[in-house]
């Protein structure tokens, strides 16, 4: 019998990508399920009064929604996950385009998403 072939296997360092991939996936799924409905409601139907009365997004109604704990949670999820989902896609596309070195690209995408998340949290806490 010949000697068993020794294959050198050195596991690579664990990637931190899952930290960004998870909110990307959550945001992608949220917008795949509810995105068209959300855009139709807040961007087209309520502003024009077609199907939904304009009063739906009145100051009083919007304020009540943003002050309700469940409303806060929905707003945080939709806004933050929109940013994190887009950040992953835009970062990878800019990387494909070789639009710059990696650290500034990350700042311009994940950094913006982190800032938007913090800003949303602060506004929801003070409102």
């Amino acid at each position, binding site marked *: 019998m010949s000697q068993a072939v020794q294959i050198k296997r050195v596991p690579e360092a664990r990637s931190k990508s899952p930290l960004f991939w998870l909110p990307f996936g959550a*945001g*992608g*799924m949220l*917008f*795949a*399920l*509810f*995105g*068209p*409905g*959300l*855009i*139709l*409601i*807040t*961007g*087209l*139907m*309520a*502003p*024009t009064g077609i*199907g*939904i*009365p304009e*009063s*739906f*997004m009145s*100051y009083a109604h*919007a*304020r009540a929604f*943003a002050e309700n704990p469940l409303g806060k949670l929905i*707003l945080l999820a*939709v*806004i*933050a*996950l*929109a*940013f994190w*989902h*887009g*950040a*992953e*896609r*835009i970062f*990878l*596309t800019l990387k*494909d*385009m*070789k639009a710059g070195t990696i650290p500034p690209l990350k700042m311009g995408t994940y950094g913006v998403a982190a800032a*938007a998340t913090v*800003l*949303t949290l602060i*506004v*929801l806490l*003070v*409102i």
Partner: protein
Amino acid sequence: MSERRPYRRPMPSNWWWAPGPYRAYTIRELTGVAIVIYGAVLLAGLISLASGPSSYAGFLAFLKSPFSLLLHLVLLAAVVYHVKTWFETLPKTQPKIIVDGKPVPAEQITKYATMVAAGCSLALILLVMGVAR
């Protein structure tokens, strides 16, 4: 003497816009821009809401402007494309589903998931129409 001198052809720097699958992939990824813009509109609305009634009135006036309506139409188109491609990719991200000893075809998973998604958006709209009435 070995004649080996392997030659590595460089990747074209604009491969991501090459007609066909690469361009379709890049367009799919760029739907992320639309989703960020929508998130930014909501965030702007939330900030104006916190700033008081007059500031929020400005936000509502923006939503009624032709620019905003056109923007939201474009965002809607982009997100519909996102829905389509998201569920085309979905079967790739999960183990094969075995029913009666046979894997369920990816096209079928895509079809059912897209129908569920259409149902979710529709249910959301009907809910809001019901609440707002």
